[in-house]
Structures are given as structure tokens and as C-alpha cells.
């Protein structure tokens, strides 16, 4: 899908990344705005209010994470000043808040700003200002484009890649599939759907029905009925946990038994599978790159134990069944490493260079075998996922770890 060879490390730095001016503070130490001998400022936006406020927990974990880093003595002796603002998932508000971060607070970079439309609204601005927009919290496929946007980098496997993998799996395993797709009617759903169609290639005609829902819809019952009526034998479920669970349950209720593929967004056992009823979920295929905190197969995993200790110590009272905490922890860890690797050269350019220099780097809570690799031409940190099949009350991973290029 992506022409660049993602495992090639290009020595040196991307031409684009050196252009920005840096000033010399002392013999070895180099700083841009937002960094000094004592402090590193990083900025973040997140919906703490409004209809998307369930993502607010990501911001809360980041706050706890950076506080814990500072309690350990900070990064290379510098305290991290993590500034987070509420944008209510509204792009105009994101623009306002991010400009405040960059121009008033003068942060070194933004980190894990959340939402596809929100990040789209600041994409150009960040690149004009040449301030790193690191590890954005969206799975859209447009964040890894170093040629045009050398200051923006994604984090999680993008939706399109994931959808391509499902499409290939369907073509290889289900003969003469008639596919029904349920999709959330926004850019997240659209991205999956586009990838899915790309993955089917010439067999795109196998999609017999494509239905959408709005997040204000109370239920997706009507949509599921339409899919059943179209005679679909494969069900690709592109929805957030609440609606995914509804759809799985409704399908069982009306006696529709297709082969089900569920997007990774809703792969949480606690948030989707349990509410949908384990009986109704047997055999559903999804994919994962992170460990699910509610999946008991990880109970004795060392990473999971460390994370649980972290949660108990720094966020007592938080609901550890929420997969967002795992996500936020892992991306914070990567940010911490990136800042560490910068050493005393805390400039925008060096930060981008370090972010683009990870080689098979292991982040805790990623599935065993999945690592982060980036380069001057590869701005997709995680590109690997593993298919999993739901069995009894937990996910069974199967097959190889899949990369975009291996599909």
C-alpha cells in the first residue's frame, strides 16, 4: 500500500527537518522555545467536555504519567511541564487552543492531540510554524506524510492498513463472500471503508450493502436489519464500542449469523464484547496491537503488572477496564523515550529527528513481537497488527504479525 520501504533506515536526517533555525544556548546545549535547562514544555488538547468527553481519560492519564516522570526526577534533569486544554472535539476550538499552546505557552511540541477533524484543522498551521505535532491520537492515514508535512507524525496503526488486512483475510478465507458494512458516518468510518474497498481491489463488488449511522442515533437496529435483508454473509463492523455491541447483539437477536469482522477501535472485552454478550461474540475476528487490560490472558504479563502498579499508584479510583488508559500509557512512554533521546539538544528539528529514528523499539503493552520503527521517510510509528479471534471470553491471536507491506 505504501511505496516506501518501511524497514529501511535512512541515515542522516530528512532535509526538511534541518531547515528550521535553532539557537545555541551554550556549548553543547541547544534549545528552541519550550525547552530550557530546567524545563520541557509539551502541549496537548483533548475533549474533556461535550459529547466526546469519554476520551477525556486519555488526557487524565497523560497528566498522571508526566507527574510520575517528574517525581522520578524528570528527563535528563529537566521537569516536563505538560499543558493540556479542553477543545470539546470542536476543530475551531482546537485551532484556538493549539495557537495558545504554540504562541503563548511556547511549547516545544504538541503531543497526542486527539481527533481526526481537530488535527486536520491544525495540520497546516503546525507545519507552517515548524513545531512538531507528535504522535497524534487518530488512526487516519494522512499523518505519515513527511514529504509534505515534515512536522507531523502519527502513532497508532492507521485505519486503512487495518481494513486492508481484513479485506485480504476475507478474500483468502470466505469463498464468494457477500459483505455488509456498518459504518459510523464521519471521517473515522470513511477511512476504514476506503481502506477496505482498496483491499478488496477488483472484488469490491462483493460488498452487497453499506449502511451508516450517526453518533446521535439511539440504536443501530434498523441498520443491522438492512444488512441482514441484503443477504450479507460477512459483516464488517466499523463502529465505536457502544454501537458495535448493539450491532453484535442485534444480529444475534434476529438470527443473522454472518462471519463478523470488528474494527480494532472496539476490540475491548469490557467495553464491547461483555455488553454484547459473550455468547453472541464467538468467532468474531478483529485485530490488536495493544494488550487489552480486561483480557485475562495478560494477567501475569510483566508489562501489564507494571501498568497496573502505575494505575494503582498514580490514578487510584480510575476504571482500569478502560482500554484508553493502556493506549495513553504506551504513547506517553514513546514520548518520554523520544525526549530522552534528544539529550541536551532540545530543538524542534532534533525532536523530529529523534522521533524518526526508532529502530524496532519496544514499547510496553504492545502485543509481543510488535515494535516501533520510524525513519526520515516513515512517519508511521506502529504499522503492525495481529488478527485475533474471540473465543469464550478472550481474544486468541492467530497468524503472523502483519505489516502494511506484507498484505
Amino acid at each position, binding site marked *: 500500500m505504501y511505496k516506501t520501504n518501511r524497514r529501511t533506515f535512512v541515515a542522516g536526517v530528512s532535509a526538511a527537518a534541518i531547515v528550521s533555525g535553532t539557537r545555541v544556548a551554550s556549548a553543547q546545549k541547544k534549545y528552541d522555545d519550550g525547552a530550557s535547562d530546567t524545563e520541557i514544555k509539551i502541549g496537548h488538547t483533548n475533549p474533556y467536555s461535550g459529547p466526546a*468527553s469519554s476520551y477525556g481519560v486519555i488526557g487524565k492519564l497523560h497528566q498522571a504519567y508526566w507527574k510520575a516522570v517528574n517525581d522520578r526526577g524528570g528527563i535528563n534533569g529537566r521537569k516536563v511541564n505538560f499543558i493540556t486544554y479542553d477543545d470539546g472535539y470542536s476543530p475551531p476550538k482546537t485551532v484556538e487552543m493549539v495557537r495558545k499552546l504554540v504562541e503563548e505557552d511556547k511549547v516545544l511540541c504538541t503531543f497526542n492531540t486527539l481527533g481526526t477533524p481537530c488535527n486536520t484543522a491544525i495540520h497546516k498551521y503546525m507545519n507552517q510554524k515548524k513545531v512538531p505535532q507528535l504522535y497524534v491520537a487518530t488512526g487516519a492515514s494522512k499523518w505519515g506524510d513527511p514529504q509534505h508535512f515534515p512536522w507531523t507524525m502519527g502513532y497508532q496503526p492507521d485505519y486503512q492498513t487495518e481494513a486492508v488486512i481484513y479485506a485480504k483475510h476475507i478474500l483468502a478465507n470466505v469463498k464468494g463472500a457477500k459483505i455488509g458494512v456498518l459504518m459510523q458516518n464521519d471521517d473515522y468510518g470513511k477511512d476504514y471503508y476506503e481502506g477496505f474497498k482498496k483491499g478488496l481491489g477488483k472484488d469490491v463488488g462483493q460488498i452487497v450493502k453499506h449502511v451508516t449511522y450517526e453518533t446521535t442515533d439511539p440504536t443501530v437496529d434498523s441498520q443491522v436489519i*438492512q444488512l441482514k435483508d441484503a443477504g450479507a454473509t460477512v459483516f464488517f463492523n466499523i463502529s465505536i464500542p*457502544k454501537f458495535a455491541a448493539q450491532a453484535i447483539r442485534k444480529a444475534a*437477536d*434476529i438470527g443473522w449469523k454472518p462471519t463478523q469482522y470488528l474494527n480494532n477501535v472496539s476490540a475491548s472485552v469490557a467495553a464491547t464484547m461483555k*455488553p454484547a454478550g459473550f455468547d453472541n461474540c464467538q468467532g468474531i475476528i478483529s485485530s490488536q496491537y495493544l494488550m487489552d487490560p480486561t483480557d485475562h490472558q495478560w494477567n501475569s504479563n510483566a508489562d501489564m503488572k507494571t501498568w497496573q502498579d502505575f494505575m494503582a499508584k498514580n490514578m487510584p479510583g480510575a476504571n482500569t477496564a478502560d482500554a484508553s488508559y493502556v493506549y495513553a500509557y504506551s504513547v506517553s512512554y514513546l514520548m518520554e523515550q523520544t525526549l530522552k533521546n534528544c539529550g541536551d539538544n532540545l530543538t524542534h528539528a532534533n525532536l523530529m529527528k529523534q522521533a524518526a529514528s526508532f529502530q524496532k523499539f519496544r514499547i510496553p503493552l504492545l502485543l509481543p513481537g510488535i515494535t516501533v520503527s520510524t525513519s526520515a521517510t516513515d512517519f508511521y510509528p506502529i504499522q503492525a497488527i495481529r488478527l485475533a479471534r474471540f473465543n469464550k471470553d478472550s481474544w486468541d491471536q492467530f497468524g503472523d504479525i502483519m505489516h502494511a507491506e506484507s498484505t
Partner: protein
Amino acid sequence: MEQFLEQLASGLANGAIYACVALALVMIYVSTDHLNFAQGEMAMFSTYISWQLMQWGLNFWVAFVGAVLISFVLGLLIERVILRPLHNAPVLSVVVVFIGLLAICNSMAGAIWSYLIKEYPSPFPKSSFGIGGVIGAHQLGVVLVTLIVLSLLFVFFRFTPLGLAMRAAAQNPQMARLVGVRVDWMLALGWGLAAAVGAVAGIMVAHIVYLDPNMMGGILLYAFASALIGGIGNPGGAVLGGFIVGVLENMVAYTGNQIEKLTGVYIIGNGEKLTVALIIVIFVLTLKPAGLFGRVVVKRV
């Protein structure tokens, strides 16, 4: 044909949800003359209370009654503490206070119980009825409960002195006061009742849409439409309005599907079903401006 029946059944089931919440809206309107934007969030909060009671080991029906009673008291308190000082404020100012309440209920629920969706049990047996199992037991139960609540309200307002006093207090406070009705307390009582009805609605809805702090966001929009179609002051109309919106919406999607099947051209589908349903509703309303079942109020000059 099978799809038609299934869509009809699913429309009725959704309609029951809207009807339930619409009833709570009408309650407030009948007793205080306000449209309460925070109704959905209050119902959500009540549902969490019942969930919490069940977590503490209570049986479903005990938790149900407990949550309804607690909601009644909370509703009463909200009126006495928050709205009382605003009795003489303009309507729009009260609407803003409702929005404030909405924000508070929503964020407090998130802070206390987290935003993760929770499954909520159904008190009804797990089976399906009708041809090909088109309607589930819970959906049928919701319809039943809605109708029971409706009849109780009808009896209460029509045949009890307290109900009469409440109607009087809402429609003509001055006159009611003159004949000895304690208008202030009637308003508070109205809030209490509305909160209690909301709790019933929330508990019925939660099994279907799952419990989370934002579960009522979308439903409230539909409930508003339902309540208004039926004539905002008419509980029976609100229930019927709920069913109309639920069925109409599914029928729009169904028709769109059939057109696409026949002609191969996409004209309307799920993305537009709410829009089209609302356009139909508004068109009807322009012909019958007092709602389908509302009485036309003759204005005195």
C-alpha cells in the same frame, strides 16, 4: 416483506424509548410550563443510581424502586434549591440554567462512574415474539411499562385532587393561589414526578443502548420531537408521538432501500432518515400548528 415487519418492530421498539423520555418532558411541561433540556441527563443520572444500588447487591426491582424514589427527592431538591430563586426570570434564562444542569449531571456522572459503557440488566425474560422473532421481550416490556406509566399519570392528573391542583398551579398560578393551592410546592412536586418518570425511562432504555454518561444525548433530541408532535402538554400524545417518530424514521430508511433496490440509485438512506422524518413532521405541524393532539388555544385580545 420480512424486512418491512422487522423495521416496523424495531421502529416501535425505538419509539417506546422516545415515548418514555418524552413522557418525562411532558411531565415537567404540564407542571411547570418549562421545556427541560436537562431531562435526559437527569434520567441518565438516576439510571446510574439504580446501577449503583444493584452493585451493592440489591435486587433489580428493589433498585428500581429505590432509584425512582431517590430521583423524586432529587428532582424536588433541584426545584427548591436551583429553580426557586428564578421563578420570575425570563424563559430563556431558565433554559440556560437547564443547560448548566445538563453539563453538571453529565460531567459528574462521568467523574463518579467513568465513561466506559456498562451493560444493564433487563428484568424481562430473554425470548422473542411475533413472526420470526421480530420483537424482543425487553422491547415489548418497554412498551408495556410506558403504557402503565402513562395510565398512572392519566389517573393521577384526572382523578386525584393533588393532580388537579398541580394542573391548576401550572396553568394559572395566581388563581390557583387564590383558591388555596400551594403553588410553590406543586412546582416542586412536578419536578419530583418528572425526575421519577425520567428514572423509569432511563432504566428501561439502559438495557438497549447501554449505560454511559452520554447515553441520553441522542435520545433527548428524538424525545423532544416526539413530545412536540403530540402537543407538548399531552402525555398520551407524547407517547404516540414517540411511536410515530420511531416508525417513521425506519420507514424512511426502508423506502430508501427499496428505491435503491429498484432503480439502483441512492437517494435517501440512514444518513438522511432523521432529516427526512423531521421534515415530514414539520410539514404536518405547519398544517396542524398545535401539534397532532394539542388543543388550539384561542387567544384573547
